[in-house]
């Protein structure tokens, strides 16, 4: 990453007893679409408000475009925010809302008009400048909020769950739309959401937060395929984990033998933990044993099978009583199984993800 646009340097913020943000360090690159993902109360919104300047950190520094802005008031910070419920000014027209920041920055009236019109085109609201926010649909208001922030050409745009109030279909459309606008304007986006699908769809990188701590910071693919903690594995995608005794270690692999020649093989994380927690993504599991003998094979009983259109979801209970979810494409090769059937599940060793929950959260080193 070249010059980072935003740097959080060991920032903490407590509210009374509650430590909302606990020693967080982040670097967000210029032009990056960066998301902070986590359940409510994980500290993501507080982190965003620290960047915006609405909160001051108890300790740590906030840097914006190479300058220390820790104590700079939000009105003097070159970042703009899109609020959860948009916070549009109801007594002003769309154009007046968008123009608000420009007029305060003493941009000349003609020039301001031009930029407002330009920005309304970017967010596809041409011709609606004279409407009041109350006369717009939810999606349109969302676009006004975006335009009102982006027209000021901020160094970074901060978005606080901006799609939360929209219905699913509109939300999907706006996700693509946001990504398009971000590419068009080249602005750094810092996006807060609790919706993992939303974060995966749009982000270049995602910081998964829990308990005021960044659990893992990585690109969407790495987060999904190499989650580092049980929390990340569970929060991104379906939680699908089993806990097993290690029988022996063979070079790079840890082998967990089970009855009847069944076994689970996983990349050895090192160390000498007697038990490992392993997560397998539902779509990586095959129903029916692989013949070549390598990889994991485990027997279980089908307890549920659900048809999901393009997919079938099968829930299999293994001997330990734990359940694994399997997703299969509904193509010609899909297995025909029914609840009560005994089946063998198999997956390649690289798909056994070690997420030892006793390991605790790991700090993200600077990238």
């Amino acid at each position, binding site marked *: 990453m070249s010059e980072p646009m935003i740097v959080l340097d060991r920032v903490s913020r407590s509210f009374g007893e509650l430590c909302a943000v606990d020693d967080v360090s982040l670097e967000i690159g210029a032009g990056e679409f960066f998301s902070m993902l986590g359940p409510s109360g994980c500290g993501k919104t507080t982190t965003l408000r620290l960047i915006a300047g609405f909160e001051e950190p108890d300790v740590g520094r906030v840097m914006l475009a190479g300058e220390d802005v820790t104590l700079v008031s939000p*009105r*003097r910070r070159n970042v*703009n925010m899109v609020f959860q419920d948009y916070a549009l000014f*109801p007594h002003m027209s769309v154009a007046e809302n968008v123009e*608000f920041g420009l007029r305060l920055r003493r941009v000349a009236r003609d020039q301001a008009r031009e930029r407002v019109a330009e920005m309304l085109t970017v967010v596809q609201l041409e011709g609606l400048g004279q409407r*009041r926010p109350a006369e717009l649909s939810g999606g349109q208001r969302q676009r006004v909020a975006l335009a009102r*922030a982006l027209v000021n050409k901020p160094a970074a745009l901060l978005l606080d769950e901006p799609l939360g109030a929209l219905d699913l279909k509109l939300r999907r459309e706006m996700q693509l739309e946001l990504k398009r606008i971000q590419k068009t304007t080249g602005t750094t986006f810092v996006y807060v959401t609790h919706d993992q699908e939303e974060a995966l769809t749009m982000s270049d990188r995602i910081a998964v937060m829990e308990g005021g701590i960044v659990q893992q910071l990585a690109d969407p693919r790495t987060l999904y395929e190499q989650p580092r903690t049980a929390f990340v594995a569970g929060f991104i995608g379906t939680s699908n984990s089993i806990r097993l005794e290690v029988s022996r270690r063979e070079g790079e692999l840890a082998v967990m033998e089970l009855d009847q020649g069944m076994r689970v093989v996983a990349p050895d994380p090192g160390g000498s933990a007697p038990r490992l927690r392993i997560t397998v993504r539902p779509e990586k599991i095959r129903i029916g044993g692989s013949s070549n003998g390598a990889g994991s094979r485990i027997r279980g009983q089908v307890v549920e099978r659900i048809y999901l259109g393009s997919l079938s979801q099968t829930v299999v209970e293994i001997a330990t009583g734990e359940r694994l979810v399997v997703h299969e494409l509904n193509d010609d090769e899909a297995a025909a199984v029914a609840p009560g059937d005994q089946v063998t599940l198999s997956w390649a060793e690289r798909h056994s993800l070690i997420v030892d929950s006793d390991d605790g959260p790991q700090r993200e080193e600077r990238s």
Partner: protein
Amino acid sequence: MESASLPLGRRHRGERRRSLLRPLAFMSLPMAILGLFFLAPMLVMLVIALQYGILSGQSGFTLTNFSDVLGDELYREVALTTVQIATAAMVIQLLLAVPLAYVLAFKAGRWEIPLLLFFVLADELNPMVRIYAWRMLLGREGLINSALLDIGLIEQPIDALLFSKFAVIVVLSTSYLTYTVIPIYAAMKAIDTNMFEAARDLGAGWWTTFRRVLLPLIAPGIFVALLLVYIPLFTDFASPALVGGTEGYMLGNAVNDLVLESGDLNGGAAMSMLMLLAAGVFAVIAYRLAKIKQLEQ
């Protein structure tokens, strides 16, 4: 609060007839009471205002009561004083009420309801007690003068504190504060506080946020407060009678004196009618403004 005082237009034209009948039926009893005890005396007043010489036996109808009042230089001066005092008191109350409502609505936290109750209770205080309390504060030997004398800021007590325009303005400024605060408070409660952060985020300081965001949004509340408070201020006579002296003589006192001192019931009635007309015109304007502001949002 405002939505209760400003009825919305009916939605379904087809049901207009039926939907009008029911409320009329509900309202028939209160309307009858209003008609009997409120409108009827007013009509009697109007008739008296148009009569002459009830006491002398040679009576008839005339407009001279009105022309006498309107033509009198002295009354025009009193009217001017009244407008000055009422306007000054209104402005002061608004200047006090907006910050008070702001604190109540956004900053009071768990004290919000107790403070609100306090405002309502403060209004329950008997006006006479309140006015006499002010006399004790403002008088020649009152608390303010003695305090100023004690710290040596003045050498002679300030006489103008009491029995003056100033005294009436001070007393009236505090008498309707509850009715000024509550509509503004109600308007503020409807505001999404994120809007203040949004304004700040876009570069607005507190003054710009106040002028361009808060003030337009509470404007309907301010007009409702005007409607509720300015008219009683304009027609008040207890405060000027007790603390006004000759300088703070208002139209309410003039009516009082015409009827009770000079025994000119016709003149007093005529003046009352004129004041009612002025109040009505003012009410229509304030109502329109409040409604327009509300529709804009």
